[in-house]
Structures are given as C-alpha cells and as structure tokens.
C-alpha cells in the first residue's frame, strides 16, 4: 500500500505519523531544521519561502505550546496564519470536521495544522482535501504527534550526535501518550538499539513490546545506564476511572528526582514534552538542573516545524 503521506514522487505531501516514514525523509527534516536555527539570530527573523501561503491552525483540543510554535514557525516562513479556536466555533453548532475543512478550503487555505482528540482525524482530513493542500498532524488522540517526535529526535541528535549507541528511557504515562508512540517510531527508524518504557502496568498499552521497546516497572532498573530520559506528563484529563492511587504515590515510584537521575549515565539528558507537572512526574531540581534540555526542546521545535512546513509547501 502506498504511504498516504507521500506523493507519487515519494516526497512528503502530508505529515500524519512517523510510523513507516522513510529514514531519508526524517534525516532530511532534521538537517533542514538545523539550517533554520540560525534564521532567528538575524536582524530579520524570517525567510520568504511561504509568502502568500495560508496556514490554518485547527485546534480542536487545547494547546498553547504546540499551537504557538506552529504559528511562529509559519510566520518565520512568511506565511499568513489563521488560528481557529474550534471549541468556540461551528463544530459546537454541529458542523462536521470535513464540512469545516471544506469551508476553510473555500477560503483558499493551503495548509492545515490539526489537533484533534480523535485518533485518525488528520488522516481523514488528508484523504478528503484537494491534492494541492497539505495536512500536518499536531496530535490526534492517543495515536501520533509527529512533529513532537521529530523535535525530540532533533534534540537527542543535537546532544548525542549518533543514535546507534544510545539507550533511551521513556517514563510515565505511556498509555495516553501520542508523544511516546511517535518518539518510539522515530527512534526505531533512526536505529536506536535500546528503547525502554518505564511505567506501572496500568499506564502501559497492551502489547507495547510489539513497538520494539523493553518494558520496566521498576524505574531504578529502567534508568540504569540510560543516555536519554524522556519524562511524560500524567494525562489526568484522558484517564477514565482510577489508574493510579494518587499523584504523590506516582511521584514516589515514577517521579524523576536527582537521586534517581544519578542512576543514568553521568552525561544523560532529561527531556519533557511539556507542560510539566512539577512534583508529579519530575522534581523541580531536575527540571531546572544542568542535565535538563527541556527549554532547548521548545526552541528546536520551531525549527523542526519550519522544516516540515517548508518541505510540504514546495510540493
């Protein structure tokens, strides 16, 4: 089956998931992103690539960081950005997702950045829109968050250079995490030999081993010798029924403290996709400590989103 994200020439038409994406395309996105980093240090923090292109940010779920960084990325590429806050608009009056998309297409949209609580929403849009339009998945349900996976990969490459000798530990609420899924896919594609997930059984999806990860329930064992630690946010808003005794108890067993961080390699980096719950999954002294690269992740995220948009916009 043809990858629905690629056009007939094998180039990126939409970005929906990292699963099954060719390695060359991922490397090209990361390389292009590094060229965009310097743009923000100049007098004019813009390049003219997407002049005249209209980018619609469709956020059916709340997000500040992702929406803002997509908006900044599009503006640094000179695109026109239209932000739609869907929770206060037509869908609450009964309009379907595809009707919304058709209406925005009639307003001459060129690119959609979509976040939706339903897994597969971005795929459905991509199948529906005209062939000159592009869809970027900014997070769909529990399924995928490809630009987050890419910025995580960019961050790891920036600090560790090479994936082929790394142990990466992903800790916390794997069950609800599209960030974890996208990260696991990209790490596998880039040849990471050991990807670990560390979580209580109740926060792991069934059959997670099939993704090519090692499962640990004991955080101390899971962190031993890790080069990269990715902490995930506890997604209380997605939890149906009690999966955990309490946030305090979770912190005791799965929170990252200085003492647990010391079990990883001395030069291990600590990442978090944000927003952080200090004292729930990560201790403040670690979040603000010397090994934390959480804020650089945000900066790299803009460059990665510029790379994706500029590769789509030229197709």
């Amino acid at each position, binding site marked *: 089956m043809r990858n629905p994200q690629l056009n007939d020439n094998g180039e990126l038409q939409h970005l929906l998931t990292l699963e099954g994406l060719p390695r060359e395309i991922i490397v*090209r996105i990361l390389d292009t992103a590094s*060229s965009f980093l*310097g*743009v923000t240090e100049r007098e004019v923090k813009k*390049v*003219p*690539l997407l002049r005249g292109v209209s980018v619609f940010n469709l956020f059916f779920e709340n997000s500040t960081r992702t929406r803002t960084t997509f908006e900044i990325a599009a503006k640094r590429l000179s695109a026109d950005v239209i932000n739609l806050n869907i929770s206060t608009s037509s869908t609450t009056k009964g309009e379907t997702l595809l009707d919304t998309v058709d209406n925005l297409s009639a307003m001459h949209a060129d690119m959609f950045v979509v976040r939706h609580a339903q897994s597969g929403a971005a795929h459905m849009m991509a199948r529906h829109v005209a062939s000159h339009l592009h869809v970027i998945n900014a997070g769909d349900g529990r399924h995928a968050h490809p630009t987050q996976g890419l910025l995580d990969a960019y961050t790891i490459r920036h600090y560790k250079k090479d994936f082929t000798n790394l142990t990466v530990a992903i800790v916390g609420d794997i069950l609800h995490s599209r960030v974890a899924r996208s990260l696991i896919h990209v790490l596998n594609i880039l040849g990471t030999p050991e990807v670990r997930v560390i979580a209580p059984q109740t926060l792991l999806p069934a059959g997670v081993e099939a993704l090519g990860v090692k499962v640990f329930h004991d955080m101390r064992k899971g962190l031993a010798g890790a080069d990269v630690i990715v902490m995930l946010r506890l997604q209380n808003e997605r939890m149906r029924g009690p999966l955990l005794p309490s946030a305090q108890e979770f912190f005791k067993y799965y929170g990252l403290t200085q003492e647990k961080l010391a079990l990883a390699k001395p030069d291990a980096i600590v990442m978090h996709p944000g927003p952080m719950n200090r004292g729930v999954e990560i201790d403040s002294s670690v979040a603000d400590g010397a090994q934390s690269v959480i804020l650089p992740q945000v900066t790299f995220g803009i460059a990665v989103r510029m790379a994706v948009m500029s590769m789509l916009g030229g*197709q």
Partner: protein
Amino acid sequence: MQLPDAEVLCADLVRRLRPEVTPETGMVGIHTGGEWLAQRLHRELGLAVPLGALDISFYRDDYRKSGLHKSVRASRIPFDVNARHLLLVDDVLFTGRTVRAAMNELFDYGRPESIRLAALVDRGERQLPICAQYVGTTLAVPKGKMLRLDRDASGRLTLRLDDA
C-alpha cells in the same frame, strides 16, 4: 569544449581584487562553488574580517515550482553587515537569479553600505538586470549545459561541464 584553467582565473581575480579591498571588506561566498572560490580569495587577499557563506535555498524564486532544495546548509555571516562594503563571490554568473536571492538574504542580516560581485566565469544569458564588477573570464556555454566548479582533495579548483 576547451574550458579555461580555474587556477589561472582565480590568480587573476586575486590580482585585480587586491587594490579594491580593505581590511574591513566583508566577503561572502555562495554555496558551494562560490564558497570554495571565496575561501581561496579570502586567504590570498589576507582579509581580516572572517568569511561568510550563504546557502540561498530559502530565497530561491523557483521554490514553489521545484520545492525546497534536497540538502540545505545553514548560512553563516560571522560579522555585522550594517554599513559594511561587501564582496559577494560566486563561481559562475548565469541568469542572475542566484545573485538576486543572495542579495535578498544579505539584506535580512542588515543594511550593507554596498555590495559588489566577483565571479570566476560569466556565461552571459542574464534574465535579471545584474552584473559583476570582477569577472575571471566570459565564456559562451551551450544551452542545456551546466558549468560548475570542482575542488579536489588537494584544494585545486577546476571547471567542469555537465548536462543540466
């Protein structure tokens, strides 16, 4: 066809540029051939200001037609362009579109006092009102052919004719 010796043209450019540059001149090479040539000129002229390099991929006028170039390199201008006399360097001057893109990019770093252009070969057939102040030689190249600069492991520069 017989191509001129790039080393001879380069030495000639150095001779002609020497009285035209000052220690404050900012030199910028256009990736890749122009950057190689600029590295040579910069060294031989003994310029004090560090060399800059532009990859004009983000400024190309054929982006919407041809997409983003496959391998983009970061541009690097390690000096303040404001109020500075700049010398832009490319290997082959042809349609003028690359030079236009390079000038657009330079102005996003600031407002230079002036920009002059040096090229190893001018193959004519300009599509924009652009000219070079310093040219190694002019050369008519058959349509559909691409004239490029090569650099071997020893750093020696040669010209090469490819099918476009």
